[in-house]
């Protein structure tokens, strides 16, 4: 096995290191036209240029030295960093529930990678216990890494694997399941698992973090604690997303996998239940239901796993002047289902109609959702809506576009009979379609209004 002494360096920088025989992790004296620098050579991120060498100077800071300015370099020592999360054996406490943490990648527990500058996951129960010792007071934790992909790379294959893994854990008698997941597509996976894992007897909790655990202010530890508590002690046996309620370190909200969506690119409290109220509030002391109708935890080990998914399904986000070839290309490429996120009550422009007719003829299942996210698709209100329905476009009530996408993939995975698909699609499951929208299901308050400001000031954000 050859060791890479020049991790991440390339081009001129690599040449310079080789020329002066200085390795990564070597202590070096560097003479440059801007004066002398002393420090440990650090690996370089592969995406950075080849014009600089990174040094950790004795005060702990990193600096880059320009290769063009280097007149001489000398390695005076060598010390490779031992980068490890302190690993301690996760203690077993009798009387605490058994919780399985299933890892998928993502940043729930992570460490830094020098070469990419990125955060990479760290995972074993021992590592987790080293990082979040409070977990041992909540449950007896075991972990299993089913696969390791970043959130944006999650897809049908991973959904299926997860569903099967969950089924196995339930069979084996686990008290609750936590799934660590990157946040970007957390709600897609939550929807997929809701459909694929039918009637679980125990809580299935998806959790992520918005601030990686390599920083002191990370939400990862608290999210993990909330999730483990919910999985081990909570009474709601459904697929849920457990993430910060407010941006403050206070409590989590549990969202139904079919009504949840990531709503801010970076906020901690980014996950919100849309068109309804969240399932419950969770802390490490209790799970307090907000919705009253939920499936309760059961003693039995029965669960139905339906790990089906048709991959040839797409979402079209409609915009003015969309050309029919957008739809035609999907038909030509053999897509079997299309979710349209239409404007307003569920509309697209007229030039698209012929393409929709061609989709109908080709046997593509086309469903309409709304890009307003809140509210119902109401295709009877305008003539155009009725016209589209005649072309086979099915209004998907108040299903969120991403949820409709997942459900259509799941339905088409089970049958190619479009009537059967329609039956599955329009049968409400876990509130993916709700019969009514309460007024508190739509709350996007506007700042600046005195009453809103007063509320924000009174309750921590």
């Amino acid at each position: 096995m050859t060791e890479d002494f020049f991790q991440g360096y390339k081009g001129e920088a690599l040449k310079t290191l080789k020329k002066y025989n200085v390795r990564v992790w070597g202590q070096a004296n560097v003479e440059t036209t801007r004066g002398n620098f002393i420090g440990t050579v650090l690996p370089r991120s592969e995406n950075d240029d080849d014009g600089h060498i990174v040094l950790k100077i004795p005060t702990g800071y990193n600096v880059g030295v320009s290769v063009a300015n280097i007149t001489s370099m000398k390695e005076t020592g060598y010390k490779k960093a031992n980068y490890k999360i302190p690993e301690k054996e996760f203690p077993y406490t009798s009387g605490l529930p058994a919780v399985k943490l299933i890892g998928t990648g993502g940043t729930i527990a992570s460490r830094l990678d020098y070469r990419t500058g990125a955060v990479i996951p760290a995972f074993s129960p021992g590592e987790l216990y080293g990082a979040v010792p409070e977990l041992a007071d909540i449950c007896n934790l075991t972990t299993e890494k089913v696969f390791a992909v970043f959130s944006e790379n999650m897809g049908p294959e991973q959904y299926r694997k997860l569903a099967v893994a969950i089924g196995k854990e339930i069979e084996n008698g686990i008290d609750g399941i936590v799934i660590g997941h990157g946040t970007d597509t957390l709600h897609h996976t939550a929807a997929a698992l809701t459909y694929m894992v039918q009637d679980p007897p125990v809580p299935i909790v998806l959790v992520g973090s918005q601030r990686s655990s390599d920083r002191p202010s990370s939400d990862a530890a608290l999210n993990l604690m909330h999730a483990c508590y919910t999985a081990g002690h909570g009474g709601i046996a459904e697929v849920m997303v457990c993430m910060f309620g407010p941006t403050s370190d206070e409590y989590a909200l549990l969202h139904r996998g079919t009504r949840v969506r990531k709503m801010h690119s970076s906020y901690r409290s980014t996950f919100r239940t849309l068109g309804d109220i969240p399932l419950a509030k969770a802390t490490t002391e209790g799970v307090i239901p907000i919705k009253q109708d939920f499936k309760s935890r059961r003693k039995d080990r029965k669960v139905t796993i339906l790990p089906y998914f048709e991959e040839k399904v797409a979402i079209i986000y409609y915009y003015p002047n969309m050309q029919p070839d957008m739809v035609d290309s999907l038909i030509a490429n053999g897509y079997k289902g299309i979710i349209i996120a239409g404007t307003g009550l569920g509309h697209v422009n007229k030039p698209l109609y012929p393409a929709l007719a061609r989709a109908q003829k080709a046997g593509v299942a086309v469903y309409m959702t709304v890009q307003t996210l809140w509210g119902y698709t109401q295709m009877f209100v305008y003539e155009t809506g009725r016209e589209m329905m005649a072309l086979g476009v099915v209004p998907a009530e108040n299903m969120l576009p991403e949820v409709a996408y997942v459900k259509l993939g799941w339905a088409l995975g089970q049958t190619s009979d479009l009537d059967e698909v329609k039956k599955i699609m329009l049968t409400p499951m876990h509130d993916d379609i709700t019969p009514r929208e309460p007024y508190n299901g739509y709350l996007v308050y506007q700042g600046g209004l005195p009453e809103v400001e007063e509320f924000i000031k009174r309750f921590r954000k």
Partner: protein
Amino acid sequence: MNKPLSPARNYRHTMQEIGYVQRKQATQNDYDRIGFMSGLEVHQQLDTREKLFCRCPAGKYEQDDVFDAEVIRHMRPTLSELGEYDGTALMEFKTRKNIVYRIKNETTCTYEVDDTPPFPVNREALDIAIRISLLKKLNIVGEVHITRKQYLDGSIPTGFQRTAIIGVEGVISLRNKTVRLIQLSLEEDSCREISDVGHWRVYKTDRLGMPLIETVTYPDMLNPDEVAEACQIIRFLNRSSGQVRTGIGAARQDVNVSCRGGTRVEIKGVSRIRWIPELTHNEAFRQWALLHIRDKLLKKIKTPTHWEMISMESDPSAFGCRSRALKGLKNNGLKLYAVKLPGFNGILSHFTQPGKTFADELSDRLKVIACIEKPNMTTHDCLKPLEGEEVFQKVRKHLGCRAGDAALLIWGPSDDIPTALETINERCRMAFEGVPNETRKSFADGTTIFERVLPGADRMYPDTDSAPIPLKDEHITKLGEDLPLLTIEAYHVMKGWGVPEDTYHYIFKNNLFPQLKQMVDGGEDPVFAGTLLGHSMKFVEGHYERASGFRYSLIGDMLKALRNRKLRRELMTLILPVIYVHPKMDLDSVLISIGFKKMDADQILSNTGFLREKFRAIRRKPDREAEVNWLMGQLREHAIGNIDLRELRMSLEQIIDHKE
């Protein structure tokens, strides 16, 4: 064994034993004797429009109770880049502080509160930092790497400060020596603390994220006055750029001090340079005292590893406690613990700082680490025991203390007791080793208290949210083109001009050397110009309210206008207060407001005959000198600005001599 001294006498005795001298009496010999060493970390806010990593306005401050929202967070230690948990980090985590941030929408966005990643670094700030680095002769880095420096006290919501080295290995010149610089970094400022009581710490976020530079020196200063001088020079150099903020809190310094055999201790956030000498003096002697304590303990206890503290939960009523703090414990839901510290009698009342003893080292840590507000402990062996001798006798008996042992009573909420006991144990064990690594908070009286365990290089790690920023040679050359004169060079120039030295401080503090030079280059007498800026202007500043439009450059403008009108420069002392308050006035209006009339020498002297008669009527006896002085006083008002006062005096003398 001799009967132990009373705590007060022991305090005085140990103070003498270690050879403590007051700073006023201290000589270089005293500092050499204890091996005084000190270095500085000088922080200076930069005068930019926006903050360093977001587009919030910089330099807008809010009142403590004015806010739009609050956010609560907790800080948790993480792994550093090199794979170790940082010592401070663990300690901060033990304290389990609830950190509340008060946010005002005008000055804070989602970046400061760590809900949005950083925006690209503020280039204006970066360029100022490079320019000042060049002034300090630092080696400028090839590529700026934003680094995260952990702070778990909550003063930054991310839990780390984004900071970046701009240059390393520089030098500054004092009057009689040079001081080497380790580095200069560009970093974001922290929150301002509103309160810190028990488990709750409240901050406001207005200052958070403002750009500042930190200049770090080697520990080259060998007495307290040198530390103050070096700090002054660094501050003046920063100000000479003309691109830094001034005013309260715009410049702050951390002072590192050690004595021979001691450890680097950092005194944080010293806001006034004149406090530095007393603080560094006392800190060096505190360390000297701690080393003595170590030696004494090691004499008594040969194997410190066998030293064992003993504690037991106790009932205040069993000891007959009478103090208000102890009698109310139960009602307040607090627990009392009696603690035996074997061999520590006479150590707890050992001098550490003026008015403080080793017992304070314990009490200070209880407050910070275990979050127990003071009073949190008492002992028989301290300057102000809360309980009488009879109580402590019972406590000692309860604990089975021997003569050489010390007994403590500590109390607090039961959740905090384990940390409290561990804190006492830990600090006592450190006493066997000497001086703990720590940062300390300063007070105006020159003493300090424990703030945190001193963090090491372990707490630095790369900021994965920011890309490195290359600094091209051309850019640096360009920034170095119009550098101001170095403070020490300007000092020598002024000295050469004969400008009185007591004006320099004011001139440097307000970056007035460029104004002075301009005046001198324009033909003004340097001594007059220097005194005008360093004395007259200083007086005006101390006695009048400054208008927002006032600029120092107005002084030169007025002087030029006077010369153009062939008026004498002495008028400036009258003009300064007027333009300071009304900077928009032109010369004519200013002259009217000071009641100036243009007169020639004959006009001024025309009244002399009448005045002399008047003087004759009031004088007691003929006296030429007194008469001239009195006449000068009468005519001065009209003469200023019209003729030279020396000339006037000569004319008066001639008149008197001639007539008599």
